[in-house]
C-alpha cells in the first residue's frame, strides 16, 4: 500500500468517528462558567483524558511537544482523522515546548522562511479562539539590535525580504530604539554601542504552556489519545514501510509514524536508519524575580549573545545562543549565567540588582542551515517534523497544519516543500543562520 492508499483507508473510517466525537463538544471555558463554578463550587473537568494503549492507530505521533500536539489537533480538526495517538516518554510539554522563551516572529531571512513563519503568526493570532484557551499571545514588538555595520547590513537585507512578503519589518536608528525602550543604553558608552535595530511590531511572546495544553485539550476532545510516560523503543518496518512502534507499554501497529521529538530526533530516526544532519545542543534560559512592567518589547542582541523580554507577571526572561558543544544533558551552567548577566548589563544597566530566580536548559536539534527538516523520508510512512533548533516553538501551528495536510492528502504542502530532507544531498540549503542563531 502506498502512502496515499494508506491515507485513503484511514479517512474512510475516520470521518464518521470524528463527527460522532465532535458532536459531544468540549466543555467550553467562558467567563460565565467561571462565575457558575465559583457560585456552585464545582470542579473543572479534566482537560484531557488517560487511556489504555490500543493495539493499533491510524497515525502514531512520537513526542507530545507543540509540534506533535498541533499535528494531532489539525489531523482531527481539519481532516477528521482522529484515530491518532501522541506518545511521550516523559510528560506533555516536558521537552523544548515547556522550556522555551516563547518568542514569536516572522522576520526571517529567506522568502521560504518568512512565508512559513508568518503563517504561524496568523494561526497564533486566532489560536485562543480556535482552541477556546487563553494562550496570552502578546504582539508587543520585537527589536533585533545592531552593534556593527555588518549586522546593520544583514538587517537591511532582512527588512527588504520581509517587506516583499508583506511583513511589517524595518530598520530604525538608535534614537528611535531609545524612544521605544526607555531603559536601553543607546549612548556610545558601551563597548559595542547600539547603531540601530530591525523593528518587527507583530513579533512578541506567548504563554508556551498554555499553547501546549490548549492543543492537547482540543485534540483530546476531538478523539485523539495522548499517552504520557510512553517511550518509543523501536520502529517496526516491513518491505521499506512502517508497520508500527514498540513502546515500554507494548507494541502498536500503525501505517504512519511521525517523528516530533526535536532534541531527541536522531535517536528516533536512527531506529529506521534514516540519517539526518542534526546535532543536539543544550540551550539555556533564566528568569529574574518579578518587577513592575517596564520593558515594552522583546530585545535581541546577536553581537552580545543575549535576548530579553518581560512576562506579564513582571519577570525578565533571558536567553542566549546554544551551549558550545553537542550534548543531551539538560543541566544549566554558571558560565551561562555569568555571560548573560554581564551582557545584559551592557544593554540595561539599571537592572543590576535584580536577582535571578531560576535557570534551566532544553535540547535543540540544530541543522546546518538553521531551517527545519519536514516531510517524507526514504522509509514509507515514516515522516519527520524536526530540526527545530532554537526557533521551533513559533512554528508549532504552521507545522502541525502542514504535517496534518501531508498525512491526509499524501502530498507535501507547498509551504513546507523547501524544508525536505533531500535538500542536504541536493545542495539546496535554506540559510537562516543570520536570522535565527541568537534571536530564536
Amino acid at each position, binding site marked *: 500500500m502506498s502512502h496515499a492508499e494508506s491515507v485513503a483507508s484511514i479517512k474512510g473510517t475516520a470521518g464518521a468517528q470524528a463527527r460522532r466525537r465532535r458532536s459531544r463538544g468540549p466543555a467550553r471555558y467562558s467567563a460565565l462558567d467561571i462565575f457558575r463554578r465559583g457560585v456552585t463550587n464545582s470542579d473543572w473537568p479534566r482537560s484531557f483524558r488517560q487511556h489504555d494503549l490500543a493495539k493499533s492507530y491510524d497515525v502514531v505521533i512520537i513526542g507530545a511537544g507543540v509540534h506533535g500536539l498541533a499535528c494531532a489537533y489539525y489531523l482531527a480538526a481539519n481532516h477528521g482523522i482522529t484515530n491518532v495517538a501522541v506518545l511521550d516518554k516523559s510528560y506533555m510539554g516536558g521537552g523544548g515546548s515547556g522550556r522555551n522563551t516563547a518568542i514569536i516572529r516572522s522576520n526571517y531571512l529567506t522568502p521560504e522562511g518568512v512565508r512559513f513563519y508568518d503563517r504561524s503568526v496568523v494561526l497564533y493570532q486566532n489560536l485562543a479562539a480556535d482552541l477556546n484557551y487563553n494562550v496570552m499571545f502578546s504582539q508587543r514588538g520585537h527589536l533585533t539590535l545592531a552593534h556593527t555595520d555588518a549586522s546593520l547590513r544583514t538587517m537591511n537585507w532582512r527588512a527588504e525580504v520581509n517587506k516583499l512578503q508583506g511583513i511589517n519589518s524595518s530598520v530604525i536608528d538608535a534614537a528611535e530604539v531609545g524612544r521605544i525602550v526607555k531603559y536601553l543604553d543607546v549612548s556610545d558608552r558601551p563597548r559595542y554601542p547600539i547603531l540601530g535595530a530591525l523593528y518587527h511590531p507583530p513579533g512578541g511572546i506567548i504563554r508556551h504552556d498554555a499553547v501546549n495544553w490548549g492543543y492537547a485539550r482540543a485534540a483530546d476532545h476531538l478523539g485523539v489519545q495522548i499517552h504520557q510516560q510512553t517511550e518509543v523503543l523501536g520502529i517496526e518496518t516491513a518491505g521499506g514501510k512502517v508497520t508500527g512502534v514498540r513502546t515500554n507499554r507494548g507494541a502498536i501497529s500503525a501505517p504512519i509514524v511521525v517523528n516530533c521529538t526535536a532534541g*531527541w530526533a536522531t535517536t528516533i530516526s536512527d531506529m529506521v536508519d534514516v540519517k539526518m544532519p542534526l546535532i543536539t545542543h543544550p540551550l539555556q534560559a533564566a528568569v529574574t524575580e518579578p518587577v513592575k512592567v517596564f520593558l515594552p518589547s522583546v530585545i535581541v542582541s546577536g553581537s552580545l549573545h543575549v535576548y530579553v523580554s518581560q512576562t506579564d507577571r513582571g519577570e525578565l526572561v533571558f536567553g542566549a545562543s546554544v551551549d*558550545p558543544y553537542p*550534548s543531551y*544533558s539538560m543541566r544549566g551552567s554558571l558560565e551561562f549565567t555569568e555571560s548573560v548577566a554581564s551582557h545584559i548589563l551592557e544593554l540595561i544597566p539599571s537592572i543590576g540588582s535584580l536577582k535571578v530566580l531560576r535557570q534551566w536548559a532544553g535540547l535543540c536539534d540544530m541543522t546546518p542551515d538553521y531551517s527545519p527538516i519536514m516531510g517524507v523520508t526514504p522509509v514509507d510512512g515514516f515522516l519527520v517534523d524536526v530540526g527545530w533548533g532554537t526557533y521551533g516553538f513559533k512554528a508549532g501551528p504552521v507545522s502541525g497544519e502542514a504535517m496534518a495536510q501531508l498525512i491526509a492528502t499524501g502530498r507535501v504542502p507547498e509551504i513546507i516543500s523547501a524544508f525536505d530532507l533531500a535538500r542536504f*544531498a541536493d545542495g539546496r540549503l535554506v540559510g537562516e543562520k543570520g536570522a535565527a542563531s541568537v534571536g530564536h
Partner: protein
Amino acid sequence: MILIDCPYCGPRNSTEFRHAGEAGKKRDVTTNDPAVWRRYLYQQDNPLGWVRENWFHTAGCRQFLCAERNTQTNEFRWVAPAGSPGPDGASGNGSAR
C-alpha cells in the same frame, strides 16, 4: 563546571576548550562528487551516550585532543593527544558505543 583532563596541561575548565567535531571523520580527497562532499559537510552521528570526539585546547596548550565523553551526562572517561588509538585500540569513529 566541567573539567577536561588535558594530557599536556592537566585538568582545566571546559570553557578553555573548543569542541572540534567527531573523531575519525575524513575528507575523501580522491573524489569531487558533490554528494560525497555534502555528506562530509552536513552529516554526522548524534548519539545519546558515549562518543569519541576531538577538542582543541584554545586557552591552554593549543593542541588538538581526542576524548571519550558521554553526551547524556557530559562525563569524560578518556582524554589523549589527537590521533591516539582509543582505549579499545581503535582509532577514530565518532560514536564509541
